[in-house]
């Protein structure tokens, strides 16, 4: 394990301290318990958007705290869901009286911890709604299982709902919109290498030089299957086809295409993937009218990528373009 860290058990705290130092103009960080809120929170009359999950996915979620996106983020330990107290305290800190919206990736741990927190908040008289993200087509959807993972779509949902909240959307509006976006986006990911949880100190799996994992999530876990490493174009096809077929995306639709790096994959490679993904989308009859390329939801230093496709409409395109001012996503302000 080669990492720029001090002690493994201090990684999350020290990174938060670094974020606080670097972004004091945008966010305030609490270390006891861990959470980050936008500097001007709470905003009276605005729904408070709260997300969170294990650390190790940076810039998600703390990097998305700020105007036009999240009001608060609750980072757990590396790959470990936050605890209910973090969520409760963060939610209270951003409660502007219009209710709290939790954006939760569909992992058993995240779901249960946010659910406990929501119960406690409601008991304290705060209205809470939850939008679940479960966009990973690699996992079969079934009511007998834990269902699908929340992956790349999370970033897009946080941006879009953040914009809608900024524009004065009510808790009910945002819940409805969130569920609509949830139903409009799909993702799939792959890995060239594993990653190493600092406290564990060993890679989460090993791959030969000519192997890849297809259908991975964002927690360093092996994917649905191991396959021979093929060219970027072929990899892109293997990710795009299940995505296109699943929703399904239909000819003539307008979409946002998001090519995401898993942590260690350089941008130059992501653009090679984007190139092919855009070609495939356009052959499929889609119009790619918005794009995002970069490392926005990561799995520590895993090499690999994921692709997310989101069906847009006029409202969503506008919300995407709306100002956002966070450490990791900034435009329009």
């Amino acid at each position, binding site marked *: 394990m080669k990492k720029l860290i001090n002690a493994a058990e201090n990684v999350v705290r020290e990174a938060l301290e670094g974020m606080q130092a670097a972004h004091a103009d945008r966010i305030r960080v609490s270390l006891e318990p861990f959470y980050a809120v936008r500097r001007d929170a709470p905003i009276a009359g605005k729904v408070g958007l709260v997300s969170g999950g*294990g650390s190790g996915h940076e810039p998600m979620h703390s990097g998305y705290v700020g105007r036009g996106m999240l009001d608060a983020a609750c980072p*757990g*330990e*590396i*790959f*470990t*869901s*936050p*605890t*209910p*107290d973090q969520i409760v305290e963060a939610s209270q800190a951003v409660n502007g009286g219009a209710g709290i919206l939790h954006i939760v990736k569909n*992992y*058993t*741990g995240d779901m*249960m*911890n946010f*659910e*406990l927190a929501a119960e406690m908040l409601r008991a304290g008289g705060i209205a809470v709604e939850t939008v679940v993200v479960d966009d990973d087509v*690699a*996992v*079969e959807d079934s009511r*007998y*299982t*834990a269902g699908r*993972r929340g992956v790349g779509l999370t970033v897009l949902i946080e941006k879009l709902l953040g914009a809608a909240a900024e524009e004065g959307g009510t808790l009910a509006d945002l819940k409805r919109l969130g569920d609509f976006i949830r139903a409009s986006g799909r993702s799939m990911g792959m890995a060239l290498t594993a990653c190493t*949880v600092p*406290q*564990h100190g*060993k890679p*989460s*799996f090993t791959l030969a030089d000519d192997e890849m994992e297809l259908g991975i*999530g964002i*927690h*360093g*876990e*092996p994917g*649905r*299957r191991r396959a021979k490493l093929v060219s970027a174009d072929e990899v892109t096809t293997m990710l795009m086809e299940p995505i296109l077929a699943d929703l399904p995306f239909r000819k003539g639709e307008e979409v946002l295409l998001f090519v995401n790096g898993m942590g260690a994959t350089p941008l130059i490679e992501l653009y090679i993937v984007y190139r092919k993904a855009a070609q495939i989308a356009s052959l499929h009859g889609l119009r790619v009218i918005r794009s995002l390329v970069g490392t926005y939801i990561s799995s520590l230093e895993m090499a690999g990528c994921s692709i997310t496709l989101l069906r847009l409409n006029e409202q969503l395109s506008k919300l995407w373009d709306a100002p956002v001012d966070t450490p990791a996503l900034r435009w329009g302000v």
Partner: protein
Amino acid sequence: MTELTLDQARLWFAAAGDLVEREIARLTELDTAIGDADHGFNMQRGFYAVRKKLEVTVTEDLGSLFRLVGMTLVSTVGGASGPLYGGFFLEMAKVANGKAYLGKNEICTALAAGLNDIKRRGKAEVGDKTMVDSLSPAVAALESATELCAAFRAAADAAKTGAEGTIPLEARKGRASYLGQRSIGHQDPGATSSWLLFEALASVCQQAAEKGGAAAGSC
């Protein structure tokens, strides 16, 4: 030994903490294979917090002891196991409310209530390759002996068998379910930590019995 006292229950959590500490690597390895490599540290963080809390807190009855343990786990573990184990002890706390000790029947009721809470929260059944696969046979095995220590021993053994029994299963719940068939062939980390909890309980009872036995000549 015929009942679980406040002192013995405290010893149980100390023993569980020791066992978890010793088995961090094993739990983490299991979670690396079919999860996200954090179960060992999650359990360690939780039971370490419990130990620290108990050191500075006087609990008047078993209800408040279990509540303290449950709350501490909920607020320090995170992940899937935090709410599940937390809920387990919070549920036991309800049964143990106001009681300085629990007889065998009450213990069975409390543990069964804990198990039910996990099944409800996790929507998991036996066979889903989760902690339920060791907890459920453990709770059932309590009935197999009338004497308390023997019942705990039977439960721990059943938990162990249950945990090992998860190896051939395909996961339907939790993180391991994302692997589909690739989850087959690996033992579930949560089922393994559940077994450790019962193992700690059995060993505390055993030691108490031996001490008691040395003093009183009978279990």
